[in-house]
């Protein structure tokens, strides 16, 4: 157990150093222009982090979602222009299904596809980040009440390029009778497929982006002088940044909470955790982006400043894998169905399992 912790700490530190050194505004801009950060990706794979969640028997590090949460958060903190979290998640699913993991960056789908009797997959994915640049997408397909993990070749699918807030290449996928490259069982995956897992990934990334935004705001508050003193000395600015700090702290707790729920291995926990995190992170992102742009004034909305690389991603991620409103509705419906007498019990989450 403590050995796992060590691997997790070392990995986190290595990734933080790599991202701090390599990810610059130039790298972000290049990615948004459609150039995949190949050199950065090679360094990431050399560290073995893409298979961090994969069990040791399948050649991975066997870390838990809780162990890798800091790495996923760093993807947000640095707005890493590579699908690291998605690939980790895809590899974890492939390994759990006893499938081989291609050594390339992977996309994951939050939709649940249909598997027909001839073993062909059909379905629609409204938005898959990175899809136009990747070879494979991993998702869940259902047939006669049974779920399967599938690896599909994106070249076999009609992909329609989309514009997004973050401007990372993305596409809508129209999957029609596609034969999977690989298919296997889907243990630990519930009716919602990989949507809770992607929602959790996006939540943790958002927590990282909020963390960075808070750091940027504090730094700017201490250096930007107006009316003869740093703006951070003005009470109005202090209160705005203090509110931002509250949302950032809640975001971090919410993201980790969702990872802890996935780590129990019970689909209902993973769904509840994702719903809590995505809902809380959505409102945090909404308020935080407003505060940050107000603190930075006009400079924050210019292309030269790095702030927008984080605020645009927050707007993107809060909408992906189910918006905060959609997940809130899910939570509310569950609560109504369980009845008011069960509300506190559900919140205290003490009777579960």
């Amino acid at each position: 157990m403590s050995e796992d912790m060590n691997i997790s700490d070392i990995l986190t530190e290595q990734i933080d150093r790599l991202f701090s050194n390599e990810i610059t505004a130039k790298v972000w801009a290049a990615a948004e222009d459609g150039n995949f950060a190949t050199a950065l990706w090679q360094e990431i794979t050399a560290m073995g982090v893409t298979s961090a969640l994969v069990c040791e028997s399948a050649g991975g590090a066997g870390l838990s979602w809780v162990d890798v949460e800091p790495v996923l958060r760093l993807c947000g903190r640095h707005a890493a222009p590579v699908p690291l979290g998605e690939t980790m998640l895809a590899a974890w699913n492939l390994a759990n299904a006893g499938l081989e993991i291609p050594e390339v960056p992977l996309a994951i789908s939050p939709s649940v596809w249909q598997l027909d009797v001839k073993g062909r997959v059909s379905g629609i994915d409204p938005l898959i980040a990175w899809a136009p640049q990747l070879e494979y997408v991993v998702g869940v397909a259902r047939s006669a009440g049974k779920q399967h993990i599938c690896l599909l070749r994106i070249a076999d699918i009609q992909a329609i390029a989309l514009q997004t807030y973050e401007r990372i290449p993305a596409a809508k996928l129209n999957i029609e009778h596609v034969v999977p490259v690989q298919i296997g069982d889907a243990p630990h995956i519930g009716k919602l497929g990989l949507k809770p897992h992607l929602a959790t990934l996006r939540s943790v990334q958002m927590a990282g982006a909020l963390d960075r935004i808070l750091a940027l705001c504090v730094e700017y508050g201490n250096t930007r002088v107006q009316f003869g003193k740093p703006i951070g000395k003005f009470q109005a600015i202090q209160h705005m940044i203090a509110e931002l700090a509250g949302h950032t702290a809640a975001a971090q707790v919410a993201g980790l909470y969702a990872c802890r729920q996935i780590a129990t291995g019970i689909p209902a926990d993973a769904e509840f955790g994702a719903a809590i995190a995505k809902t809380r992170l959505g409102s945090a992102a909404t308020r935080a982006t407003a505060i940050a742009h107000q603190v930075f004034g006009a400079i924050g909305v210019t292309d030269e400043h790095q702030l927008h690389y984080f605020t645009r991603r927050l707007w993107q991620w809060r909408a992906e894998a189910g918006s905060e409103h959609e997940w809130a509705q899910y939570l509310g419906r569950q609560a109504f169905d369980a009845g008011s007498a069960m509300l506190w019990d559900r919140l205290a989450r003490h009777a579960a399992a």
Partner: protein
Amino acid sequence: MTTPFNFQPLELPAELLTLRREVRAFLADASSEWTGRDVGHSWTGFNREFSLEVGRRGWIGMTWPKRYGGHERSGLERYVVVEEMLAVGAPVGAHWFGDRQSGPLLLRMGTEAQRERFLPLIAQGKAAFCIGLSEPDSGSDLASLRSRATRVDGGWRLNGRKVWTTNAHLCDVMIGLFRTGGPAETEKHKGLSQFLIDMRASGIDVRPIRDLTGEAHFNEVTFDDVFVPDDMLVGREGEGWAQASAELAFERSQPDRYMSCFPLLPPAMDKLQELRLDDRLAERRLGESIAEMVVMREMSLSILGQLEAGRSPGQEAALVKDLGNTYEQRMPELVRELIDAPARINPDDRLSDLLGFLTQTVPTFSLRGGTREILRGIIAKGLGLR
């Protein structure tokens, strides 16, 4: 990776479920007669009989040593009891302040004689404590307080006034902060001391302050040459500021900082379902509320874990109180948004009674325990902005 705060998770062990069920069963029975207004009072509700019963069951002073009437149970067990009480809006006011603040203060700073005398009484629900901090000219700016304790033969003479003292008219003992050193102008934080004050001592006058709900649970307490013997000084003379600040840090992170309005949600859900208004809007609003509360509870539990480990997460506690107050203040409005409540308070209708009371009470939530703006100043300072 550095973040300016620490919120390591704390998982409540499954064994606590037995205690939780025990408390729940007791409360299900005890709450049958409570009105909406009673439930709205929650931790300010004063009910001596209820506190005596809670004391008999061993749920006050749970973590204290047995030799002081405590039960040597864990902070986690206490937490379970506290949140179960708040979830149903139990009237815990008669033992709340002693259990949460004064008892722990005496355990940390009190003399052996003070502990032996007061702790067993608090744990039995027999001694109700109030906290004498604010004064007419000192609210959140506590360091400016002027009420004075002057040395006399064998003790001290207290003179001055305390305000906003919750339930002072019903309490047995006050822990009051008084100036024992130089004046507020020159010695702000220095020269303040805490005293255990018998509320029946001569020279004490308690005047109720009626509030906008029509009730008078706040009080103005006047001290006119009140004698306090030497052995009722708490901790060290002149150290009262640091002692009171430590108490506040603890107070700010507890479930009472986000659960005060929780009892409003279940009857609101019932009404929504009864009126078939549990639609998309209601689902979303309820879901948001659930998500926010679950996350806040995780934060609060994390702070408990840190306190248990001997750390003092003052910054984190301030964050929780700021988020918590915003959350609980929004609750009556959230209910109004979903249910068209008429412009009358109907005491026979639990939801109407509760909503009416809380609508008029929530403005105080971001005042008590440190004004929101003061807390945001503390947070900003922790972030390195001042």
